[in-house]
């Protein structure tokens, strides 16, 4: 009986495993090979083993430093904004009124469409010559000249972050809503009986019980922000002056503009390692939180 059952088990897993092995084990192995060899497409026949030379090249590149600065600046704006937007939206969605039901459908829309589309939508919103944002601010008398949002380094980063929040905030909101719905309403009624106001209830009940959800969403959104690529491609192309040349955009450019596969692969591994470290760190924090 047990033997027949495991025969069935392996047979049902076989198709999935074949696809996954071909398209994950092999690529990882090949990427490792590339990262240890000189692989420059403009000089295709010269591929000696170079040890960790590619890693060292990637680490010492001027562009790495500048793209890390851009990524950090972008993340410092994008991640907290996504979290705050998500939390506020979730608190609204959790209220029992008609508006919450309308918002519940609407909020899925930005998340549902391709990131490329969000990028184009915001590029048009922020267009320096004919964009609706400039037009609205100008007519309201808030600005006196149209602002070239995406042509100034600092503003372009803000613009990219706004588009990112538009796209990612809704998902965070749905996650937070799920967290809020696990909190028993009895706790709030008990707190109300004890004379606690809304603010006190939020601080003493909602926030502590939501903490595990917050950590998970934070991990997820950190990774998403750190690997943002599609938005950069269509909104700014990494510019102006590399201000929005985020790390995954730089890895892409290393491979497909500078045609250096070896350094590109090494860089990709470094990014993967850092992200793994971030995930492990967060999980540690989460676990020690749970033990408290």
């Amino acid at each position, binding site marked *: 009986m047990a033997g027949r059952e495991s025969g069935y088990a392996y047979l*049902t897993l076989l198709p999935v495993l074949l696809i*996954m092995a071909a398209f994950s084990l092999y690529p990882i192995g*090949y990427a490792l090979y590339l990262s240890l060899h000189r692989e420059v497409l403009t000089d295709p026949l010269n591929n000696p083993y170079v040890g960790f030379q590619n890693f060292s090249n990637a680490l010492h590149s001027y562009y790495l430093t500048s793209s890390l600065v851009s990524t950090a600046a972008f993340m410092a704006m994008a991640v907290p904004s996504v979290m705050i937007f998500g939390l506020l939206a979730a608190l609204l969605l959790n209220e029992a009124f008609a508006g919450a039901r309308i918002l519940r459908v609407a*909020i899925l829309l930005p998340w549902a469409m391709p990131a490329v589309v969000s990028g*184009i*939508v915001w590029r048009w919103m922020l267009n320096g010559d004919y964009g609706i944002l400039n037009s609205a601010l100008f007519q309201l008398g808030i600005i006196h000249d149209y602002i070239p949002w995406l042509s100034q380094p600092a503003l372009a980063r803000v613009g990219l972050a706004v588009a990112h929040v538009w796209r990612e905030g809704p998902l965070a909101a749905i996650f937070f809503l*799920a967290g809020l719905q696990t909190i028993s309403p009895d706790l709030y009624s008990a707190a109300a009986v004890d004379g606690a106001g809304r603010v006190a209830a939020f601080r003493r009940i909602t926030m502590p019980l939501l903490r595990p959800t917050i950590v998970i969403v934070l991990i997820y959104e950190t990774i998403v922000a750190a690997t943002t690529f599609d938005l950069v491609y269509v909104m700014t192309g990494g510019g102006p002056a590399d201000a929005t040349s985020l790390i995954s955009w730089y890895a892409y450019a290393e491979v497909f503009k500078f045609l250096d596969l070896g350094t590109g692969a090494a860089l990709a591994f470094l990014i993967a390692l850092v992200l793994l470290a971030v995930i492990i760190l967060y999980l540690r924090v989460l676990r020690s939180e749970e033990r408290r």
Partner: protein
Amino acid sequence: MTTYIASRAFRRQAGLWAATLVMLVFILGPILWMLDSSFQGETELLTRPSHLLPQQPTIANFNYIFTGAVPQGLNVRGTLRSRISQEAREVPAALENSAIIALTVALVNVALGALAAYTFARLKFRGKSLVFNFLLGTRLLPAIAVAIPYYAIVSALGLLDSYLGLILVYLTFSLPFTIWFLRDYIISLPIDIEEAAQIDGCSRLQLLLRIVLPLAAPGLAAAGAFAFMSSYNEFLFALLLTQTISSQTLPVILSSVATNPDASLALIATSVVLAMVPPLLFAIAFQRFLTRGLVAALGKG
């Protein structure tokens, strides 16, 4: 006292509605402005200040994309004429490519995913946790890390610029999530009926097809919807693995329309509006499944 409470409740309602309105403007505003722009002519879009509503609404942009008839505003000599982007005419074909690829990925995901998920949920066999962790572990690598090797393997298989190449790649992205999601879904189903049917002599496959799958239908719908959306929306690999309009998907065509510095803004807006339709319909139709699916996904993550 009652009026005090009533006015407080009223103020609270008003506050909630105001906050909802602000959120709705932020969320829907950009989408509506895109829709609005697609019904304006190029000359009207290039005015300051922008027209909040089209003063001469036109379907000429849509007409150009589907029939090639040049919109009136652009049908003059000089700079405007040069802004007509030929790529915009490829949007319908790209829409078809995207739909075929994403639908295939969704169907294969549900079929292979359910088969594997049931095995993980209910059977005991050697190497179970190893195989399961391997599947989930493959998702830890960021996409950019495996871009070149994927290109190499798809090219070695002769599948560059084909539906099959993209479908295989998207399957490897979506199957681990589908299996993990459906496994949890099946575990949460009551096992009694299965045990009774097993005593009556049903084989594992019969159990899966006749009992588990009908019960798991909402889970299957959610898993299929996720696979559809992630494939429909994917950009980086579509960019790398396609070369011509015979396989280029919407995000690729849209990015090439939009990053062309001379492109007509009206045609960009129209292309984007066309691209938005399928995911928006999908999101509204599957809203309940998607929300529940996302929630389940996070809870276990």
